[in-house]
């Protein structure tokens, strides 16, 4: 959690921390790490440390927006499918089936290749790849929650189906979805970087980690060029994974709760 927080702070304050302009080229070409350039310089003399820091400005907000969009689309469609069933459900499910038939990377690659390699297209590709999982999850949750007594109760009190869905079901779906979304932030960063690494996303130039690793792989003897951006990706993904895990634990019954349950053996009678 601390790590994730740190990265977010970096992304916000980067103009103040980064010692160099990420695009500024110096004369120190492919210089190994030194006190002046902590991570060394790349083939155009740009400071890698600064570029790594600036990369967070690119990757983090995009990943965040990506996940939010995927959740929005997936939850909306999944919620409607789960609650209303019938043909709506069929339509949504068959669509998600179609997307699930393809391995994630392949699909993302196909979309970007078709649209033309660029960062915006890569973002769209990741969105397309991510939303079906949310649709599935939300649909499942909605289907089980709509049977609950409190939903029945609210319908008896005069609520319309839609109101029951929005006011009663969805807030209870939010928990598990939030956990998934947080874990997915790491995945989004990874997938985007992966696409850029393959040359299908961000093109070399702006400081984007994936493309930096790509360039670095071409200049293998200058190990610092690819390694540091790679570590950045690793640490961000790990950070969000841990965050997601902590969130899941926080939302789950805590040990004190389960001890309380053990200490209060079932109230009264009842079958």
């Amino acid at each position, binding site marked *: 959690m601390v790590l994730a927080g740190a990265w977010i702070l970096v992304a916000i304050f980067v103009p103040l921390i980064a010692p160099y302009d990420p695009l500024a080229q110096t004369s120190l070409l492919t210089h190994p790490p030194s006190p002046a350039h902590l991570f060394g310089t790349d083939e155009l003399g740009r400071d890698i440390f600064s570029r790594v820091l600036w990369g967070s400005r690119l990757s983090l907000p995009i990943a965040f927006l990506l996940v939010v969009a995927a959740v929005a689309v997936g939850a909306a469609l999944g919620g409607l499918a789960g609650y209303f069933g019938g043909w709506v459900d069929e339509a949504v499910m068959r669509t998600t089936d179609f997307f699930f038939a393809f391995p994630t990377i392949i699909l993302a690659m196909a979309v970007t290749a078709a649209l033309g390699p660029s960062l915006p297209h890569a973002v769209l590709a990741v969105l397309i790849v991510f939303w079906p999982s949310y649709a599935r999850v939300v649909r499942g949750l909605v289907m089980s929650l709509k049977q609950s007594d409190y939903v*029945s109760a609210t319908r008896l009190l005069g609520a319309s189906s839609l109101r029951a869905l929005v006011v009663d079901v969805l807030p209870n779906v939010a928990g598990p979805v939030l956990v998934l979304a947080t874990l997915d932030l790491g995945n989004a960063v990874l997938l985007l970087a992966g696409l850029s690494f393959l040359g299908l996303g961000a093109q070399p130039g702006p400081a984007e980690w994936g493309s930096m690793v790509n360039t670095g792989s071409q200049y293998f003897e200058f190990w610092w060029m690819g390694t540091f951006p790679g570590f950045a990706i690793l640490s961000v993904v790990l950070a969000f994974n841990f965050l997601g895990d902590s969130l899941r634990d926080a939302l789950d019954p805590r040990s004190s709760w389960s001890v309380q349950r053990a200490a209060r053996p079932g109230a*009264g009678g*009842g*079958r």
Partner: protein
Amino acid sequence: MSLLELRDVEVEYRRVGQTPLRAVAGASLSVDAGQVVGLVGETGCGKSTLARAAVGLQATTAGTVLFEDRKVSPLGRRARSRKEARLQMVFQNPFSSLNPRRKVGDQIADSMAILGLVPPGKRRERVAQLLDQVGLPANAAERFPHQYSGGQRQRIAIARALAAEPSVIVLDEPLSSLDASAQAQVANLLKGLARDLRLGLLLISHDLAIVRHIADVVAVMYLGLVVETAPTRRLWKAPMHPYTEALMEAIPRADGSGWLPEGLPGEVPDPAHPPDGCRFHPRCPYAFDRCLSESPPLIQVRDGRTVACWLHAAGAEERSPSTFAKRASAVADQVDRV
């Protein structure tokens, strides 16, 4: 004129690759204003299904359900109207019948907003009033359900139902998951509400003993059928159906006397394959030949009582089987599945 009337209601479930299950095979009851009707039965008798059918959460396969003289339609896409919402339900499990993520006050005020019963400015006051009526402090409105015990949550559920200004409330085992103390408190509350607000209550329970303290009229169900109905006092004085008699004899007494209650032989049969003739005959101590082949209809006997048993003829005097009927010497143990 009864507020809630169920006539020959049947509920059958279709199952894939199996025989259909008739959870309710023909039940009739009615609830008047200010009257508490207790529906008692054990596992597999269909009482919960009947309760859900009574409010429209479950569709009926036959028979009619009338509320305030209008047919109750099963809950579909369409939202319930104000008139339809005068029929409310309180569920068995107080832990799942309240939305864990919404404040208590908001949930109680739901019907006021949806049905337009109370203008926005007055809602807080009304919620406080309802909480007071069920014996909870006004600040409960700002809290969440998980901060309350089972008994308190049940009261919140009752307050929520009352907010819709109902004339009849169906309660599905409202006391089952509560401690003895909470049971007594909620039981007294319900009795008071029925009396003070002239509410009709249909109370479903497996506990005959506690129903005795709350209900005016008791209906006993066995394997999908109502087998006896009577005013509470008369039922306890002289149960007419052998099953009712057995139910009473099975209730333990907490007096330290060491008296062990008598149970019933065998087990409740699978509702999908009920016995021929009278459904109770395999376990009945008084069964005779007619019981094996013909199913007794629910008939009127004296003093506003009904019973479905070949031991009693129409218009008969009220008397329990143990006082006059012959106990069969060997009763075959009904073994259901194995």
